[in-house]
């Protein structure tokens, strides 16, 4: 018992430790970088900090994240149950088109959104039957899902609209539009927003006043600078994040938040979530406990269809159009979703954060290309990928479910 256990324990601790160290190291590096940028506004660091701490970057990161995060959540459920669903890209494509088409037909955004979800779920159901019932190779079936959608959606658009791109429909409202329009809640929120803005401004005013008051005093100067910096950060968090990004964010961003929370709860706190995890780790254990493994896997794969469908619908509806040229408007988001959940170690929150990091870097990269920072744009364009690789190396190994990708046949002999 003893030695073996101790060795294993130690291994686990080390693993955890490396993750923790990586987090601390990145945090420290980021803080140092921010301080550098704030102290020397004219340099590249200054520009970067300026860009990072802007409402635009955050809100576009959030917007870019929506389809990726939702598809990643779907992928988590499927793979945790033991079925690797690399067809997420296809599910996004089919739902993106379905949502626009149904909205165009009915004029109702919610019907359109639902239709996208249904389209994706149907395709996922096909995938589930092929993999679970007919024991097809999950990777090949997943690629087939992608290719089917990649061919079908632009083709349908061509037939219906005469072009790979559909007509435009109206887009869902932002959170501000929805909530501020409500009778009482809207007023309350308005007050809160102005209070928050006022608070942020007040903090900065006080800090600046302090700086002026102590001007010329040598030692106090540094201290005050620190206070001013902190005040600036508080102002940023309150005004830029809360007000700027969140209030103006589209409702689908909130849907995503909700789904991340629900997925986490579902996976780690419900009976179904436990069965999903057991099904992907040791289906035989689940089977001998009297739970039908196939049924759990069906449910998980269908759920991946529902979640990806939300992602695809949100993607096309927020832009008001489905564009079907080349890799379509989905353009690899389903595959990035796979990276995101692997990166987040199959944890819904982890997948969300890693998507946000990636989307944030992507948004940053776009802004930086527009500004002249003295680095060729071609190099800037690869920074998100380089960063992802660096972070991956720091975070360490992802733990893949033991039985992922393996067919399970119940039966006693």
């Amino acid at each position, binding site marked *: *018992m003893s030695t*073996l256990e101790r060795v*294993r324990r130690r291994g*686990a601790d080390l693993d955890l430790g490396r993750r923790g160290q990586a987090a601390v190291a990145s945090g420290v590096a980021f803080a140092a970088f921010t301080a550098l940028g704030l102290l020397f506004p004219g340099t590249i660091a200054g520009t970067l900090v300026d860009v990072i701490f802007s409402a635009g970057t955050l809100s576009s990161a959030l917007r870019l994240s929506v389809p990726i995060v939702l598809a990643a959540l779907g992928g988590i459920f499927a793979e945790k149950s033991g079925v690797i669903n690399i067809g997420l890209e296809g599910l996004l494509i089919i739902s993106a088109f379905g949502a626009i088409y149904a909205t165009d037909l009915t004029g109702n955004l919610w019907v359109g959104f639902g239709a996208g979800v249904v389209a994706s779920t149907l395709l996922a159901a096909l995938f589930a039957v092929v993999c679970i019932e007919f024991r097809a190779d999950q990777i090949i079936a997943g690629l087939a899902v992608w290719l089917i959608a990649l061919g079908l959606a632009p083709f349908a658009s061509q037939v219906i609209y005469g072009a790979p791109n559909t007509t435009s429909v109206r887009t869902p409202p932002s959170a501000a539009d929805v909530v501020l329009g409500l009778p009482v809640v809207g007023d309350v929120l308005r007050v809160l927003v102005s209070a928050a803005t006022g608070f942020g401004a007040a903090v900065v005013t006080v800090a600046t006043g302090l700086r002026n008051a102590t001007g010329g005093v040598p030692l106090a100067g540094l201290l005050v600078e620190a206070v001013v910096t902190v005040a600036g950060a508080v102002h940023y968090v309150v005004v830029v994040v809360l007000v700027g990004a969140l209030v103006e964010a589209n409702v689908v961003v909130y849907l995503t938040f909700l789904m991340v929370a629900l997925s986490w709860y579902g996976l780690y706190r*419900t009976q179904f979530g*436990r069965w999903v995890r057991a099904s992907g780790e040791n289906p035989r*254990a*689940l089977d001998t*406990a009297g*739970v039908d493994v196939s049924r759990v896997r069906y449910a998980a794969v269908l759920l991946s269809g529902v979640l990806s469908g939300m992602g695809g619908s949100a993607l096309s509806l927020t832009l008001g159009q489905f564009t079907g040229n080349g890799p379509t408007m989905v353009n690899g988001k389903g595959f990035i979703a796979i990276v995101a959940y692997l990166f987040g170690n199959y944890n819904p929150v982890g997948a969300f954060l890693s998507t946000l990091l990636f989307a944030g870097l992507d948004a940053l990269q776009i802004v930086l290309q527009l500004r002249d920072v003295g680095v060729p744009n071609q190099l800037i364009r690869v920074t998100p990928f380089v960063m992802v690789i660096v972070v991956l190396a720091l975070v360490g190994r992802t733990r893949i479910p033991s039985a992922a990708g393996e067919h399970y046949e119940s039966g006693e002999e």
Partner: protein
Amino acid sequence: MSQPAVELREITKRFPGVVANDEVDLTVERGSVHALLGENGAGKTTLMNVLYGLYEPTDGTVVVDGRERGFDSPRDAIDAGVGMIHQHFMLVDPMTVTENITLGNEPRRFGGLAVDRERARREVVELSERYGFDVDPDARIEDVSVGVQQRVEILKALYRGADVLVLDEPTAVLTPQEVEDLFAVLAELTDQGKTVVFITHKLGEAMTAADRITVLRDGRNVGSVAADETTREELAELMVGREVLLDVERPATDFGDEVLDVAGLTVTDERGVRAVDDLSLSVREGEIFGVAGVDGNGQRELVEAITGLVRPDDGTIRLEGADLTDRSRRERIEAGMSYVPEDRQEQGLVMAFALVENAILGSQHAPPFARDGRLDWDRAGEHADSVVSEYDVRPPDARTEAGDLSGGNQQKFVVGRELERDPTLLVAAHPTRGVDVGSIEFIHERLLELRAQGVGILLVSSKLAEVQALSDRLAVIYEGEFVDVVDPADTTEEELGLLMAGERPDTTGDPGTDTAERGATEPPEESTGETGTADGSGGGGE
């Protein structure tokens, strides 16, 4: 005692071509520990699988709690209060102890939506305290030892309301200390009215832990005895039984020089246990050196260290005087070491390859089969054909995939390939395991031919009769050490059985030396075909 907890009446279970259980009666009293003792293939696991609903008996009835039952699935058995702890645990590694115990039966709240984690944890703590189990409910399975995992499996069965617990070879994966802990747990369980049946092939364990012992041999119940009224000798005799005669002509040969010399070999297995402990042996030209023992006593590690599959912690291995201890597999093959591995499907053959390809495994890198980086398939084909015809492999077609051959033919093919290498030393591990009688005789003849040609043979087998009939010297291994090295002709099976159970002889033999000529001149009087001796690893996967 009132009504027995479990009663099996005239259970017969046939598989195509095999009778695994033949009218077996078994009565297990409530609140007792009952050991099911027997060799590998004696039908112990089959019998318990019938009780657990995994197999439907061909004939006979299962009575639990005085009521006749027909279990269609383990679920039915669980509902009737029978829980089974398999040799390979059914646990989800990254989940906690509590999560595993309650899996499938989670207490819930919020209208069945969420798992009531506090209640689950509380129930698990209560359960383990009640039976005096030392288990951390929040530890992850992957972080706890095998012994704790086993306790989790027992708790899982108890959580589901099991009254009768069936454990399949529970000690096979445990360290000696863990075995003691397990037996304490079993005693506590029966004190509280539970009934325990455990399968074992170790008679010492049966005598220590059980109240009653039932011995199975060749699918039949050959005796049920109370543990405190029997002796090791009696049990050994029941297990081994009287054996049918198998004639092996073993002509006298002159032993030549030492071929293999192993000194001070020590090997640690993956559990960190010393599987081979400071062991020395030597094999001479024209000699068959047999190693007998209950499986799992270090035979595999011994063989794999000699053949270069595992690295020994200590000791030296010399072949014809050359030190091979740090040499690779390839270098050992080139030095003249052939190897018939224990598991032909895992180690001996590539199942998806044709026989032609399998025939050159191990020689694929060198002439005559490889030249200038290319394989000479014509040569390989000729070679494969000759192995197939000489060793009577059926179907006689070298293009057949190895996986399409029957086990006996696969084995003949592996033996053929290894013998055709023209070795100076053959290491043969269970060369006739799972092989029909005709093939057994054939393989035995080939081994003796090789011996007559002056090849040294290290023969490891759990079939007592086999090693006894073939060996010139016979070592009995127990817990990684040779208990004794004997002349097989002068030793009875009962004596060997006791040695295999770890009982040292009064006059300690000197392992690895002496016995130069004895046993070589006269074939043993009686010996036999099929008695196996137990199997620790596979659990008799019939």
